[in-house]
């Protein structure tokens, strides 16, 4: 187990499987809303399922429809349990923030330094804590 210092935007206690890559993602076109599968054939996690997982990508790209996509995924239960980024721009943050305030739904959003992000590559599972500034990586 490796302990990494993290910045929490929204967080709850959870432990889940990690889906990691160094490829940025556009949730519009990049993820199948109905199934939670990564659907961008150019993405390293193509065909992997992110539902209930900890989905790590360095930063978001492309369409600003990502907020609406994540809201719908939260509604129908295909959303990831958490997102880990190096940088989180408002496009990624919108869905989790709006759902947190309006619907009391939590999709954790966590930031790591670039150096620590690279350490996730070996990880299999991630554990997050609502009240800690560290996360645990299990290999």
């Amino acid at each position, binding site marked *: 187990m490796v302990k990494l210092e993290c910045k929490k*935007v929204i967080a709850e206690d959870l432990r889940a499987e990690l889906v990691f890559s160094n490829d*940025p993602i*556009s949730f*519009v*076109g*990049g993820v199948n*809303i109905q199934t939670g599968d990564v*659907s*961008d*054939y*150019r993405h390293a996690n193509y065909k992997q399922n992110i539902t209930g997982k900890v989905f790590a990508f360095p*930063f*978001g*790209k*492309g*369409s*600003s*429809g*990502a*907020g*609406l*996509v994540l*809201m*719908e995924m*939260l*509604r*129908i239960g295909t959303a990831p349990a958490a997102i880990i980024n190096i*940088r*989180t*721009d*408002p*496009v*990624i*943050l*919108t*869905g989790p*923030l*709006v759902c*947190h*305030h*309006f619907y009391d739904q939590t999709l954790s959003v966590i930031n790591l330094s670039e150096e620590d992000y690279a350490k996730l590559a070996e990880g299999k599972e991630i554990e997050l804590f609502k009240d800690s500034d560290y996360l645990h990586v299990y290999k």
Partner: protein
Amino acid sequence: MQLTDYEKALLDGKHGEARQMAMNVLYDLGVYYGVDRFVEIVGCHDDSTVYFGEAQVAFAEHLADLGAHFAVPTSTNAVALDMKRWDIQRHGSDWMAATRRIEASHLKMGAIASWTCAPYQAGFSPAFGQQVACAESNVIAFVNSILGARTNRYAGPLELLAGIAGRVPYFGLHVPENRKAEGLVVLGDDITPDMFADRSLYNFIAYAYGSIVGDRVWALDGMPTQIAMDDLKQFSATAASSGGIALFHLIGVTPEAQTREMAFDKEPTEVVTLTQAHLREAEAELCNFDGDGSIDLVSLGCPHFSCAEFQDLEDAFAGRRVSENTKMWIFTGRGTYNTVQDSGLLDRVKRLGVHVFVDGCIMEYPTDKWGTRSIMTNSGKFATYCFNKVGIHPVFGNINECVETAVAGKVIRSKKPWSN
């Protein structure tokens, strides 16, 4: 965070529940980015319009029911389909019904019925230095880079909340110091001025630029100084598709980079030369032409077609018509549609066999309803998303090649000077 009395009152719910909820979300956003104050905006572009699912529809209705009203002029982005001719497009009535609910709730909140992803070509373009909140990735890139107005990459439905509150946390690209370029992309000597006669070059450079730069603010040196608005539109849309580009500087072209010194406040952190090899990579990503010449659909208007593009289209047809072996669909906004109708151009283009749709989005094309197997486009953005959204790897061509293809009923595409 330093709040004005009005902002405190908004957060305390003294101006209604909708504004309070909007401020709560924006306040949290500000805390995340370590922001010390809000900044008022003068306009908003609402991109919560293309139908993704019930969550978005219910959310807008919830806001409208709470009595939410936009505090600033708010233009609306494209919706999924043509609100009058959706049946001709073979969209389902369920999508139309959802779109009507989106329309009703957004109009109830005071949105302007522009329904276009090129609002800056339809009378909704902020001035240099103005603070705005825009969603829709191409609009964000264009408004920041070409107009010099200031917005972050907002996503639906956050821009609705910004429009309702009339303000956003003062961070990111709202702050002038953050708009300076960090790194520099330089066009290599092997990309020569004569190559720009082929307008597809703007898309390939933009695709490569977005891939190199990712989500950062950089500058690009070596571009022609006189670039048509529609090529700047294509550049913005394509760079914001291959990357997370919110602001780019074209040295000698865009307003915050009239000189290289203006674009930077220190030496570039990194310099990358963009060469013909990058163009070949971009072309390989955007264009799937295997030599089988059949083409089912030529689809243009991503972002929405402009008046100038309608004229370019008519000129390129030179009196010829769309072949019976293919179809040509154009997507545009209502404003542009009405203008080209008034000038007689719309009827002339339609007589060439071209189908023109308003409001809707090219990406939502119902491939399965048409049995379409091949698509050609002049849009780098559409080409980027086409396989993921529509299920087809498209052929990419400039507007002239798209017209020649439509006329011939099979792909006509010239060999590019940068191709192997």
